[in-house]
């Protein structure tokens, strides 16, 4: 799958990198959907000996390929929310020297980054690589509700029903982009929704 090049944007917008195998005592790889391919790209038998993979397929069928890498531990979770306890447990028992790799959707990387920061790993030390869907995790600035997997701009807040404009302003604390009411001044004047990057 070709990598999507995000257009240049404001400083607030996170910049994702490209994974590389690094030296370290142990490795934690967290991926969703197509993120599995980024792991497959860097996996070596030596690396996998000390690697714990946490994978959320989101409908993709890469789990068997990851399992075939024979990582030290493999966990397949039905959703991010169902996996977050597992992520916290791994981090709370981890020691310095752990290398963290996050790959897949921005939502997954952002939320997992929040956990690693809380655990004391500076975000500059966490590797990321975007793969797959460019849909965003959005926070409504009005009701604070989160809408996942937003592909269109503007979109309807799944909590308060306002029509929201997709901003590049990003909150690390909420691991979400900010959505702002698009028709506040001129009620009912809502532009035709189109893809975020169209």
């Amino acid at each position, binding site marked *: 799958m070709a990598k999507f090049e995000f257009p240049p944007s404001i400083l607030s917008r996170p910049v994702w990198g490209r994974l590389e195998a690094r030296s370290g005592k142990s490795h934690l790889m967290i991926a969703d959907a197509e993120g599995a391919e980024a792991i497959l790209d860097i996996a070596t038998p030596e690396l996998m000996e000390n690697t714990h993979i946490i994978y959320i397929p989101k409908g993709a069928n890469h789990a068997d390929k990851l399992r075939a890498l024979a990582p030290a531990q493999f966990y397949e979770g039905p959703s991010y929310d169902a996996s977050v306890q597992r992520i916290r447990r791994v981090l709370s028992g981890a020691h310095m020297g752990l290398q963290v790799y996050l790959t897949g959707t921005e939502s997954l990387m952002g939320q997992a980054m929040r956990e690693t920061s809380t655990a004391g*790993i500076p975000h500059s030390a966490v590797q990321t690589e975007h793969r797959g869907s460019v849909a965003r995790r959005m926070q409504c600035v009005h009701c604070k509700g989160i809408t996942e997997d937003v592909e269109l701009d503007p979109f309807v807040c799944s909590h308060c029903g306002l029509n929201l404009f997709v901003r590049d302003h990003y909150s690390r604390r909420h691991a979400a982009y900010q959505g702002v009411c698009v028709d506040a001044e001129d009620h009912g004047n809502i532009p035709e929704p189109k893809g975020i990057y169209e």
Partner: protein
Amino acid sequence: MSGAEKIKVKVTEITPINELVTRFRFTQINGELLPTFSGGAHTVVEMDDGGITRLNPYSLMSDPYDQSSYTISVRRDDEGRGGSLFMHNNVTVGDEMTISYPVNLFSLDLRADKHLFIAGGIGITPFLAQIKQLERFNGNWELHYACRSEALGSYVNVLTDRHPNETHIYYDDQSQAINLVNLLDGQPLGTHVYVCGPKGMINWVRKTAEDAGWPRDNIHYEEFLAPQPGKPFEVKLATSNKVIQVGEHESLLEAMEREGVDAPYLCRGGACGQCETHVIGYDGQFIHRDHWLDDDEHASGEKIMPCVSRFEGKTLVLDR
């Protein structure tokens, strides 16, 4: 006027700690309180050594919140350029001296869940202030301190009395050594490591931690770099329109100051970046000794840090 702002102080107490180390206490001449600082800060002490002005940085070791006085510890270096000998031999109680406002290039990262301190010899001093700072907030810390011998173990007794559980002492002459690989291995996520001591120790800790996969942001170090003597050389200062000679026992920065050129500085030890100077032209070789410029910048021939670095060759023209 370059450097941090100055404070006029009086020496109120001189305490020999052991054969090599002496502690000096300063209070403000005008009787006012001194500024607070943060653990790891240093002050630059001015010395008038028979007409030569010496400006040496020393870590503040007193409680950062105690504004009544500052203390520093000076290790006598018989082979050095004389600053420490001046402090040991010429300074007496009651003397008036000038020191700089505290500058911190080795501060604690207060986001850390745990602070792991590794000290060698006189490198203990910044940690003494940092420990006092952390104790106020019940900070989580641990000290591993290597000394040459019991007789030369500055402040070992104070540390082991007050903090028996956090302090670990290693004596070289008893063949005790820090088992660094093991020590780093068991540290919880969110630990920051700080090292201050001789160059070899700093390099060892940085390399071992990086090899074990520690993020660079979690590794902190401070080295006491003193300018090294070297062959005399000539420098043309383009902006000041002067040609000056740098003597064997002075740094390029000191030579500029001697000639009345107001060159910027803060740490005088190759760490802060303040003195960075653009090179206009050269024919010869740089002897870079700073921790500020990276390898590429050192190789480029475009920059020099005059507080610690030197030059050997025919011509050197600086934008100063």
